């Protein structure tokens, strides 16, 4: 099942001589169970792609489809609802609200959705549990380590029915092993049926994805897929590049 589809998506900023094409005819699909990484130098269009996929920006041409719904055809109210219900975001800057506890932060999008505070709280605890941080549910973001904050942000991204994750450098300033734990979590969520887009300029992080697409000047110029698993499970180490 396709969770996200970009069809010939173009985004031009400005007009006339000052027009800058940030994204140029990009086509990309993300299926349930799949983690796709987007790599490219600064200015290649990575963030534009993510903003368009999340309905935070509108394409100049082309179509963005999330969960079977073309975003361009939705009223702004229905678009906001779809964003809350279908899409989870994790940004480098985590955007946790400092005045709310971890559980309240995670529950917030569900409460905005109109479900009861009690149900939302239950879902938040379940999400925090899933990411191994249920014990810090009642603490405030400022009292949490970077890794814990990141897990709270990811729990928020996956609360309720949300199945499409959009992540922009989600391992930000975390150390190697904590960052790796975060990527492992994202990966496991995708394996259990979510879909994700991971924007990063770090090759080591992108390598956690099933597919890596390379953006350059607003276009996809190449794509790398992991090798098919072999019987003895190591396609690389048995041969490898000399």
């Amino acid at each position, binding site marked *: 099942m396709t969770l996200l589809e970009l069809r010939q998506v173009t985004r031009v900023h400005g007009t006339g001589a000052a027009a800058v094409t940030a994204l140029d005819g990009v086509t990309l699909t993300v299926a349930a169970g799949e983690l796709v990484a987007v*790599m490219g*130098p600064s200015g290649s269009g990575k963030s534009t792609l993510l903003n368009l996929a999340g309905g935070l920006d509108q394409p100049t041409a082309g179509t963005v489809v999330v969960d079977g719904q073309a975003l361009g055809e939705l009223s702004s109210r229905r678009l906001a609802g779809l964003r809350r219900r279908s899409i989870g975001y994790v940004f480098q800057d985590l955007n946790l609200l400092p005045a709310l506890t971890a559980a309240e932060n995670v529950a917030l999008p569900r409460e905005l959705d109109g479900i009861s505070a009690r149900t939302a709280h239950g879902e938040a605890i379940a999400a925090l549990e899933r990411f191994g941080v249920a014990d810090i549910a009642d603490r405030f973001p400022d009292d949490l380590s970077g890794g814990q904050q990141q897990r709270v942000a990811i729990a928020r991204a996956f609360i309720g029915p949300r199945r499409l994750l959009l992540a922009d450098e989600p391992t930000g300033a975390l150390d190697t092993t904590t960052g790796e734990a975060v990527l492992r979590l994202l990966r496991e969520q995708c394996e259990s049926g979510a879909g994700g887009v991971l924007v990063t300029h770090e*090759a*080591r992080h*992108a*390598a956690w994805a099933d597919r890596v697409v*390379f953006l350059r000047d607003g276009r996809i110029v*190449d794509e790398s897929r992991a090798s098919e698993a072999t019987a003895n*499970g190591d396609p*690389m180490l048995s041969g490898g590049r000399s």
Partner: protein
Amino acid sequence: MSVKLGLLALLDEQPMYGYQLHTTFKERTGDTWPLNIGQIYTTLARLERDGLVEPAGDDGDGHAIYALTDSGRDELRRWFATPVARADRPRDELAIKLAVALTVSGVDVREVLQTQRTATLRDLQDLTRQKREVAPDDLAWLLALDSLIFQAEAEARWLDSCEERLLGSPAYRNGVAR
């Protein structure tokens, strides 16, 4: 150097026979370092010639057991106490290929870089997948995989840096020599 020293390290734990060394070596390095049994025997012969190991009877089934000598033990301590020098790589094919590509007219160097980047990423993806499947307590295998992962990452970063330099150079336009 290191097959020799690797075997010395294993024999420091206990005397072993050739096949046993082969199996243990594979376990410890997690197959990052393919080594056939013949290399084990020739290395053992050389170590014995140099007085670093000595025969220590057999295991009852006719397998010749080897044990570390005192000078073997000294050699091992010296190894652990000495940093590994960055290996000289007299022929780094990739660096040479890029250097040559810069001088051949009409070659799209950016394309050469991207082709390599995609291949490097695929290697990284394969290594990362293997890492996902490693049991958390298999530290030796994790460290060995991390080593390959960080090397591949270094290559990817170097390729990024090559591209930045290329795009910043007035002698090239979109990766092709003017």
